[in-house]
């Protein structure tokens, strides 16, 4: 048999090429371009090779905010995933109550990041904010502007408040997809509530949880607005995460070369961690 070659077929792939080129490759290449040059002004630029990368990888600012970033994303996942599952498990399954819960859960998701930051900035103030005032009147000294622990606590609380709904909604939809017959079969098997969760619900939720973990990891790893609005990354540098370090460098100091190298490293970290997570999960599936 001879293979029929039809070169016209390439035209059909063209739109995708163009789309990917404009949406990803070309913008990324400008950054790559910056990251290998030392730019003084419009007409003066020197090729420096991997210099900026070397410098950035040894930069203590990057190390510190990277560590902070991992701790933050880790905390976010550790709190939001179990909490989201718990909320989904407790939600009513039908009737008005279910619709009401869904609406309530969806509300935080509709609020823009900077508004969330502002809400909590005011809410947490000891003098005029209800939350800050209440905590302080309980005798606990709480001040996010002065105490790094309090600032961390507030940023985490904001993120949990803002995004646990997403995990809960994902899990809720996953739970609704489990046919009633599974629960009946479990009753016939005399399975305990824990066994039902561990051996039926959790395995059935796995695919939505993978998506949930990935989304929450990527998103929390890029957090910028909330700590910026709350304390501008402070007190000190205690809530300065990667994206804020990057912004300071690129926009504040206009160090385009190092900032570009930083961006690419940042991007590769997100990609690498997500890829590692996803392949490990898929691999575990096959290994068993």
């Amino acid at each position, binding site marked *: 048999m001879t293979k029929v070659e039809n070169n016209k077929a390439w035209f059909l792939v063209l739109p995708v090429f163009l789309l990917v080129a404009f949406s990803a490759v070309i913008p990324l290449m400008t950054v790559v371009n910056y990251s290998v040059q030392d730019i003084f002004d419009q007409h003066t630029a020197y090729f420096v090779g991997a210099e900026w990368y070397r410098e950035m990888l040894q930069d203590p600012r990057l190390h510190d905010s990277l560590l902070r970033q991992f701790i933050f994303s880790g905390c976010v996942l550790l709190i939001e995933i179990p909490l989201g599952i718990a909320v989904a498990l407790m939600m009513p399954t039908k009737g008005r109550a279910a619709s009401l819960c869904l609406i309530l859960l969806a509300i935080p998701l509709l609020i823009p990041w900077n508004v969330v930051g502002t809400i909590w900035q005011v809410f947490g103030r000891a003098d005029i904010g209800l939350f800050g005032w209440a905590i302080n009147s309980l005798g606990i000294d709480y001040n996010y502007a002065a105490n790094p622990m309090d600032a961390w606590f507030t940023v985490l609380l904001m993120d949990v408040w803002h995004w646990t709904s997403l995990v809960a909604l994902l899990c809720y939809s996953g739970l609704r997809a489990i046919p009633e017959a*599974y629960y*009946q079969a479990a*009753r*016939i098997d005399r399975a305990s509530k824990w066994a039902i969760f561990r051996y039926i619900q959790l395995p059935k939720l796995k695919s939505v949880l993978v998506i949930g973990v990935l989304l929450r990891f990527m998103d929390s790893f890029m957090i910028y607005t909330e700590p910026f609005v709350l304390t501008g990354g402070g007190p000190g540098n205690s809530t300065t995460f990667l994206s804020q370090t990057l912004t300071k460098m690129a926009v504040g100091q206009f160090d385009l070369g190092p900032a570009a190298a930083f961006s690419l490293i940042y991007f590769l970290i997100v990609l690498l961690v997500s890829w590692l997570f996803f392949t490990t999960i898929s691999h575990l599936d096959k290994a068993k």
Partner: protein
Amino acid sequence: MSLTLQNVTRIVDGEYHLDDVNLMLEPGSFNVLLGRTLAGKTSLMRLMAGLDKPSEGRVLMNGVDVTGVPVQQRNISMVYQQFINYPNWTVFENIASPLRLAKVAEPEIKKRVKETAEMLHIEQFLERRPLELSGGQQQRTAMARALVKDASLILFDEPLVNLDYKLREELRQEIRELLKARNSIAVYASTEPNEALALGGKTTLLHEGKVIQHGSSSEVYRYPVNVDAAELFSEPPINLIRGFVSDTEVTFDSTVHFPLNQDIRGLKPGDYYFGMRPSHIGLVPHNDDDLEVSVRVELAEISGSETFMHVKNEHFNLVLQLSGVHEYHTDTPIKVYLPTHKLFVFGLDGQMLQAPGRLYQGGYHG
């Protein structure tokens, strides 16, 4: 072990899901629960299992009242329409799970799982997980889980509807074989008359929450107690024509006459419903006194190696079941032959008075 339902009624939100059901299932019997969607098959099975409690009435097992006993304390197993297995356990662990709960010793578990898996031809998949199997194999696993323990009652809730035709026939035969050697009661819910006939055993007809007939499958098929039973146990549905009987002849729908023959003698003059199985109406006469009727083709539906032909004229609306593939265009005028010797006769109240082969003798009481 026997299972008896006495005056069982279940009402949910003011709606009767089951209405005064009386049923006695014998030890070792295979019972098909035949009914349309929403007839109450699943409700009845849930009551038998102990997943739900009846609003009224009693459930007896071996003569002992178990009405309030929850499912966990009854020795039952169930197979569902969906393929229900523990998703992250191997097939072996899935089949072994009921035995583990019963605290059976490990060597015994191994032996019984192996035996059951062999019976269901899944012994080569024991180390795989359910989602790595085909639909048929997943359902075999679920069935193995149900059969591995010696349940006194095994419930099958339309277990084969999600499988393809070939697998269905194969598994249906296997289910029958597997249960023959057991003393447990099997209940098998189905919407398909043909499935009930293929499975043999007993058939219980369920219609709008009521048991309308219970008996051996062939008996129920041949002698339906009323119009509902006849319609339920016929695919395509039985043809019903209103007719008038005089001293000498029968008139269908005031238009077609034929003389009374020995098969429908003994009916008092008056109005009746006459039923004809779709397979008994032919395109050629089978008998000298078959009744010729001119009709037009409305639709010829080919189902496997059979054709369901819908025909009508201004008086009749009939369905024929013909073997072989027949292609007819809509509106083709044809002649069909009604079997005057194979008529079911029902009173206007729907009660069966005569079936082919069973003469009217002051009323038939099944």
